[in-house]
């Protein structure tokens, strides 16, 4: 029992509720949101140190022993993701202060943001598949409101699509849970792992596993990403950035968790399928990114490529591949937030998202230009930035697992990603300054979060050795589900 485990979930929810009560005090909202995110970050840091020393930390809510109660489990994998979530959320918040606008702030922007973070962190930490559903819903309901906040025509149109797709995938999730419960009689991850391992993963169980894969793919944007480009380009920059950084990652987390902890017995079927889907996702995403001449579209398609690439590592189910996935997952959260914020800033400065309508931005905004350059290199995995290590490990993992085609697709699509981002850089930042008014719009306050994220992507690249120990621990936990199970049940034997 370790009550620390629950703190990252309840701090944001308490902060959010207090904000709802004191609705009118926007300044107070800002301070409270920043403070609570920082508090969550500190708690998570402590938690990481504790996990490093004592192994996986668990908490049985209300003292009800697993599998009867709801367990919260913080292993290294989850804790690292939560820490990244905090950093990214903080940067998006700082950006939102300057850019989100009075009207949205008055309409519960900060509380909703907090609930979104609650849902995301809850999903990372829950040890129970139904609780995962609940946390997903907390996250999704907040995202439904955030995406439609402001209510322009385009936003409403996209949010209706987004909500419908997610409602239907939630129903599918429930169907999958119902079948799983009927077959195993439990919903606790650790218990599921034991029972599935005992009974063997027969054909029916694999079908259920694939049903889960479909559900999480819809949420993560793995192959079933048709809803993603529209929805992510509709809301304002800060919201789009947090969506791109976090929401798809929760789906990815769920896939990795479920397919390393519970359904890992039939990799010839399930993991091959994940690999094939990841391959298609990368190709289609890269084609989309290359084809469009619109900043928002290019960067949203890059989200899709990233999803495919991370899951290519997960599909290999080798230590190397999973290490790569985890490195790349952390990198992707940071750099996707960065690139979305940069893209949003460019649109804010030029007033258009069409690439052919502006050029020569680097003359007026050198800082922004160079940050964009670094983000572009990092996104396509060029050393010494953070994407490089993940790329190496994932590619090696796929080769090791015999998915050579997948590794090659991954490398080819990185080139396409590089081209698509450089297209923005060359067309938008180089060239002669074509803007007529030639006035310099203010970027004050917007550059700070961008700077933090840029520094982070550089440090994650150069200082990868520093987090290597923790990543290794996380991957070891994923490869050997035994640690996780033992942490949940203690020394009791459960069948």
């Amino acid at each position, binding site marked *: 029992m370790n009550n620390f485990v629950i703190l990252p979930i309840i701090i944001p929810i308490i902060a959010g509720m207090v904000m709802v009560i004191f609705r009118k005090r926007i300044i107070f909202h800002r301070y409270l949101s920043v403070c609570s995110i920082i508090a969550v970050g500190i708690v998570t840091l402590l938690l990481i140190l504790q996990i490093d020393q004592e192994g996986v930390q668990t908490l049985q809510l209300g003292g009800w022993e697993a599998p009867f109660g709801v367990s919260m489990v913080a292993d290294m994998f989850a804790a690292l993701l939560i820490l990244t979530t905090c950093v990214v959320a903080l940067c998006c918040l700082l950006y939102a202060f300057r850019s989100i606008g009075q009207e949205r702030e008055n309409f519960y922007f900060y509380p909703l943001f907090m609930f979104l973070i609650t849902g995301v962190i809850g999903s990372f930490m829950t040890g129970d598949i*139904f609780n995962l559903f*609940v946390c997903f*819903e907390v996250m999704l*309901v907040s995202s*439904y*409101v955030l995406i*439609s906040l402001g*209510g*322009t*025509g*385009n936003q*409403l*149109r996209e*949010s*209706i699509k987004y*909500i*419908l797709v997610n*409602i*239907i995938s*939630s*129903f599918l999730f*429930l*169907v999958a*849970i*119902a*079948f799983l*419960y*009927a077959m195993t009689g439990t*919903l606790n991850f650790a218990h599921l792992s034991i029972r599935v391992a005992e009974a063997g993963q027969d054909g029916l169980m694999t079908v259920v596993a694939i049903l889960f894969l479909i559900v999480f793919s819809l949420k993560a944007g793995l192959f079933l990403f048709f809803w993603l480009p*529209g929805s992510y380009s509709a809301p304002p920059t800060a919201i789009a950035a947090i969506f791109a950084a976090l929401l798809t990652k929760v789906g990815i987390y769920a896939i990795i968790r479920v397919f390393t902890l519970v359904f890992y017995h039939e990799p010839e079927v399930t993991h091959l399928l994940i690999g094939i889907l990841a391959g298609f996702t990368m190709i289609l995403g890269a084609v989309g990114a290359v084809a469009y001449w619109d900043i928002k579209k290019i960067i949203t398609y890059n989200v899709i490529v990233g999803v495919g690439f991370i899951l290519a590592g997960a599909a290999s189910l080798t230590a190397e591949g999973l290490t790569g996935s985890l490195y790349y997952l952390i990198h992707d959260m940071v750099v996707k937030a960065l690139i979305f914020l940069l893209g949003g800033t460019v649109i804010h400065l030029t007033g258009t998202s069409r690439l052919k309508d502006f050029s020569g931005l680097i003359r007026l905004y050198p800082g922004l230009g160079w940050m964009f350059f670094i983000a572009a290199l990092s996104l396509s995995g060029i050393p010494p930035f953070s994407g490089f290590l993940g790329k190496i490990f994932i590619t090696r993992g796929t080769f090791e697992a015999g998915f050579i085609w997948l590794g090659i697709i991954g490398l080819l699509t990185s080139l396409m990603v590089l081209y698509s981002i450089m297209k923005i850089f060359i067309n938008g930042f180089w060239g002669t300054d074509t803007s007529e008014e030639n006035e310099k719009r203010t970027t004050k306050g917007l550059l700070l979060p961008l700077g933090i994220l840029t520094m982070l992507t550089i440090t994650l690249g150069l200082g990868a050795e520093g987090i290597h120990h923790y990543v290794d621990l996380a991957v070891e936990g994923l490869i050997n589900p035994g640690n996780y199970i033992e942490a949940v049940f203690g020394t009791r034997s459960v069948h």
Partner: protein
Amino acid sequence: METLMSILVGILFAIGIYLILTKTLLRIILGTSILGHGVNLLIITMGGLKKGGPPLLGIEDLTYADSLPQALLLTAIVINFATTALLLVLSYRAYKVLGTDDTEQMRGTENE
């Protein structure tokens, strides 16, 4: 009994999916609602439809009903209720702003 329930769930799913595939927003919302009911019935069926007392203190019974699917169901209903309400409000707003509730006419990516 389980067979009957399964058939009922199938019928509800069919109706729900049919409605979701139509063009009017209101019908789509009704479709999701009916689909939700189908899912809820599925959960309760999957838990096993057996006779037994409620799992409460002070009730002496030989068999007890499984309370977990019911707890899941309750949560699912609440979430379904909230999302349906949100979707209703949103599509009403969309109807007012975009001037149509026909998804065919809503198409497009331009911000008018």
